């Protein structure tokens, strides 16, 4: 299949290892990757912070860039939620019928990375091996907006050598929430501290998720207090093993 990758603005800039891992997994499975260089941001940060007017042209831009894709893969559950839940609303508000039609036409072809693997490609074993103790945080948008359920866990369970431990209250928000972490920094800190306690109690070496924004938050707090534990996007675990080696310790 020809898969178009929307890497997302922050993965592109801050977490290229995740993008490389996505490419590695999908190419290993025999698919072709397109990366339209015109892509930038889906508009989530603007939309969620109240800057709807600024988000609309970004949404239109995204749709026009990916309009003809066979499938769009996005390794960030919150960006997929933005597109799936709020592009139709933005389109309705804009009264731009053509945009609305294009959104409705594109949406069934937009997939979060683990969704693409399990739903579209019907896979649970992607041939990875990863010999570490790992715990999985269910990012809010993946859980409640995309209804990922145990799809990411099914993929992880099929990773050879992985020691997967359940995270207590894994469905509780880590407190990132985009600009929330800055506007309500104190509450956000209290929330991430609860998350950190849960992570530590699993004795996992790595906390994983389908969204680097949560992981940036969890990892940022861990690094200050418990640098021995790290965070890693699920794609990097699924890319591990075989020819590409173990992503753990890979200095980017």
């Amino acid at each position, binding site marked *: 299949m020809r898969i178009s990758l929307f890497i997302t603005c922050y993965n592109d800039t801050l*977490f290229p290892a995740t993008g490389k891992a996505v490419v590695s997994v999908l190419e290993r499975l025999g698919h072709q990757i397109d990366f339209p260089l015109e892509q*930038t941001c889906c508009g989530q*940060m603007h939309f*969620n912070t109240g800057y709807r007017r*600024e988000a609309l*042209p970004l949404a239109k831009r995204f749709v026009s860039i990916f309009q003809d894709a066979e499938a769009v893969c996005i390794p960030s559950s919150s960006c997929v939620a933005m597109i799936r839940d709020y592009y139709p609303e933005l389109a309705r508000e804009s009264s731009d019928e053509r945009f609305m039609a294009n959104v409705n036409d594109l949406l069934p072809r937009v997939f979060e990375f683990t969704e693409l693997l399990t739903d579209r490609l019907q896979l649970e074993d992607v041939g990875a091996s990863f010999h570490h103790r790992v715990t999985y945080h269910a990012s809010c948008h993946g859980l409640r907006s995309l209804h990922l359920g145990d799809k990411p866990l099914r993929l992880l369970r099929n990773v050879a050598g992985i020691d997967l431990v359940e995270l207590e209250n894994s469905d509780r928000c880590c407190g990132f929430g985009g600009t929330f972490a800055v506007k309500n920094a104190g509450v956000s800190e209290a929330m*991430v501290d609860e998350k950190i306690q849960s992570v530590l109690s699993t004795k996992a070496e790595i906390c994983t998720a389908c969204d680097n924004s949560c992981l940036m938050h969890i990892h940022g707090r861990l690094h200050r207090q418990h640098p021995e534990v790290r965070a890693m996007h699920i794609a990097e675990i699924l890319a591990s093993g075989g020819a590409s080696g173990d992503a753990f310790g890979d200095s980017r």
Partner: protein
Amino acid sequence: MSLVTIDPRKAAPFPRAAAELLRDAQTRKNVAHATDVIQRKRAALVTEKEDWQALRDAGAKIRREALVHLDTYLEQFERQLTQAGGHVHWAADAGEAQRIVLDLLRGVQATEVIKIKSMTTAEIDLNRSLEANGIHAIETDLAELILQLGADQPSHIIAPALHKNRHQVRELFAREMKLPDLPDDPQALTEAARRYLREKFLRVRTAISGANFLVAETGSICIVESEGNGRMCLTLPDTVIAIAGIEKVIPRYSDLEVLLQTLPRSATGERMNPYNSIWTGVTPGDGPQNLHVVLLDNGRSELLSHEMTRQTLQCIRCAACLNTCPVYRQTGGHAYGSVYSGPIGAILTPQLQRMEYAQSLPFASSLCGACYEVCPVKINIPEVLVYLRSRVVDQNRGKLSSILSQERVGMKMMARIFLNHQRFESAQRMGRLLEKPFVGKDGWVHKLPGLAGQWTAARDLEAMPAQTFREWWQSRGKAGGSRQ
């Protein structure tokens, strides 16, 4: 506690109020414990209900129908209640509601009233207005009594004293009821409250209540409660005055079939409330002979015209969204500066204030969506939160202070950058350059200036990698990599 107010016009912005509460370890412990207990009970009772999602759909449909035809159903309610011997009064705002209640109480020469728990009367600050006019209001709900004796404010919609534990309640009762030897077990505490209240029930001839539902079809008022004190207030006095927001009306009596299943399960984690009182008008020689219902608008009707704002009024005040909210969990209700706290308070309060006050509340959420997931009438709270954020941003667009704010400048700049990928690429390179002085030896950023400093106050930030993804992708193409 002195800073606690439930008047949104006077309350501190959420982040400031929250900062104060975050330092109150005891309150946070009480809130986390209480909400954990209710959530566990709720989860068990929701799981056992196979048709739970269908019940949510049905509840949402009933509430939507009521709101879309609110004028019709309110007039029907008025007709039916009047025919049954009751009286309906219409109050446009808090002041008018206070005056109506005061006039009714003066009409029966009341100097004191007993009260059923009612968030609506707290919304209009009724007790204070009555005190100012020489009428003493006595709260009879156990939690409300705790708040009244402690001169405290509600921190939760259905368990307003949730921020207090039993040891704190014991101290309060021992002092206020003059019971120095009172033990702190729940039974002894409720027994003390019972004795304290029984005397009031038998003496006071006038009661004030709220309402859970107003049934248009029959003119009935429905009140659910756990203690039975509410039923005392509804049956013993000569005069009962119920104050209800106009949105409390439901079309049909049979609608209670759905809502009386979803409300208790969502609210207290019970299959049914211990006391369900539904009464219709006046029965000569039996129960209160003067029955008044004050229908309160106070900003509600302005939310009716748009679907986005209207859904806020679907709320049946179960507080499941508070109990599940990870933000409420950390701060408790007082941080919201309103009688309505938690996620529903964050959307209801600013709208009732016509977006003039409580502007920080729509931002007091990480948008995790747990509230929407549990809402028994399917209010899409995250969607409304984000919409209200845009209202706040838009109404400040012209203001100089806002034009110059770091946030707005940053947002405008980012929006411009994202509109062109070459500009985005330059910004990525520029970011790497600007970040350099802040990167520590370990490859992490530990301290940043300005707004970003809020992040590094508690968290580190990994330094930007030497190569962006797109740079890698392009280099791979040039090297003849497998772009295919």
